[in-house]
């Protein structure tokens, strides 16, 4: 996966070994190396920065507490992503239980923040873009967990199929198949709304 700098001397596995031996600096290096990987996944599941950062924190706390369970046959990032998918799913369930009013307020606040954050952008276009993005994100979150995770890994995090296969404990071909099915499920989810709008908007371009 792309988190590891090319010229960093210590491998993840070396750092894990040292962290297991009580070297907390080694674990902090693992954290700095991979926090964005975890964060990007978490943010796609719970698109609020504070929630996503909480997940990152929880993932690394759990990883630290369970370092002795990590086996070298899997990549450290793969192991980390497995923890991330589990914790993100838990957090999403918790988030979905929040009241509709609270969500609405949060959305409104986010929209205003986004509009205000880029003064050169046309506010109407920004709103439309955000509306579509929210629609897609909601559709992703409405997918079953196994579809949602592969969409995030492949289409949002741009992980290689080999890495996805490792997380899913399957073959590369199996990973590709799952991604295809997930995309199909996402398209079905979006078709009644966004899909039709896209088709209508682009019909003349064809």
């Amino acid at each position: 996966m792309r988190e590891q700098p090319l010229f960093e001397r210590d491998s993840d596995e070396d750092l894990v070994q040292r962290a297991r031996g009580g070297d907390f600096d080694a674990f902090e290096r693992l954290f700095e190396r991979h926090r964005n990987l975890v964060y990007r996944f978490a943010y796609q599941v719970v698109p609020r920065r504070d929630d996503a950062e909480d997940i990152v924190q929880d993932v690394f706390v759990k990883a630290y507490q369970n370092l002795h369970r990590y086996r070298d046959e899997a990549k450290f990032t793969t192991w980390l992503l497995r923890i991330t998918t589990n914790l993100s799913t838990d957090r999403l369930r918790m988030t979905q239980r929040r009241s509709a009013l609270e969500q609405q307020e949060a959305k409104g606040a986010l929209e205003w923040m986004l509009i205000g954050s880029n003064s050169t952008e046309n506010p109407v276009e920004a709103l439309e873009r955000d509306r579509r993005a929210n629609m897609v994100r909601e559709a992703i979150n409405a997918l079953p967990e196994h579809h949602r995770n592969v969409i995030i890994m492949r289409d949002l995090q741009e992980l290689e199929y080999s890495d996805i296969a490792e997380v899913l404990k399957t073959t590369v071909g199996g990973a590709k198949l799952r991604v295809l099915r997930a995309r199909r499920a996402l398209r079905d989810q979006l078709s009644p709304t966004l899909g039709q709008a896209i088709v209508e908007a682009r019909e003349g371009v064809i």
Partner: protein
Amino acid sequence: MTDKQIDLMTAVAFEEGTYGEDIEIEAALAEDPELRAMFHELKGLKSDLASLRDIPECQLSKERMRNAIFAAKAPKARFSIFNWAIAGVAAASMLFAMISLRFAPEAIPDIEDGTPVAVAQASVPEKVDTVATTPVNEGKLIAQVTEEPRGLVSKLVLATPRRAFSTDEAETPKVPSRKMASVARLAPPATVLAAPPAVLAAAAVPELSTPTAGESNDPAATFASLSEPADEVILVSDLNDPDTGAAIAVEESVSSGIEFSG
């Protein structure tokens, strides 16, 4: 359109198709407007997904993560040690209390030779049941204090008209022995061994009487004070010193307060 065709078109739209697949889909799109619409829908989906990749930076610092790790560990440790400590103290206290109650020595001083025996307190048992008729020298249970007396009986001495008691199987209960003193150290509910009159009546049993001077050193003898047949229990709470005549003991008949059955 089959699922396989849709998957193929999806792969091409997401730029994951092979060269041959790209050519195949391009040709199909040129002929079918419905396919084109779907293809553009998929392209739009890819674009929308790509737009979601733009996310704010992660602001979580390693210091916060470190604190979270230590905070996650610390309460567990405190909780664990604290609880174990409390549980340990509580368990030790309970064990100590149980052992103390079970094995606490009675608050009755040992009887030494030559010491007049203060054999009873004022309180007496409510009821004594005769439960067997075996000779005393078999050491069988014949009487049992079954009810709580009024207050703690530190020493209870029971005597029948013919015999007093003994707990010692081997000992011939001609003369009440020191064993009687230990028998008498009872806290109710308690059991005592005694020889019932019915069994011993036929035997040549020395008449029990008040202790002689020679017997005064034997504290247990001092309570053997009954001489007439009667289902009677004598509770001896004090004695007279046979040498000096000083009042050091009082005999108290408690037959009216004791029931014999059997």
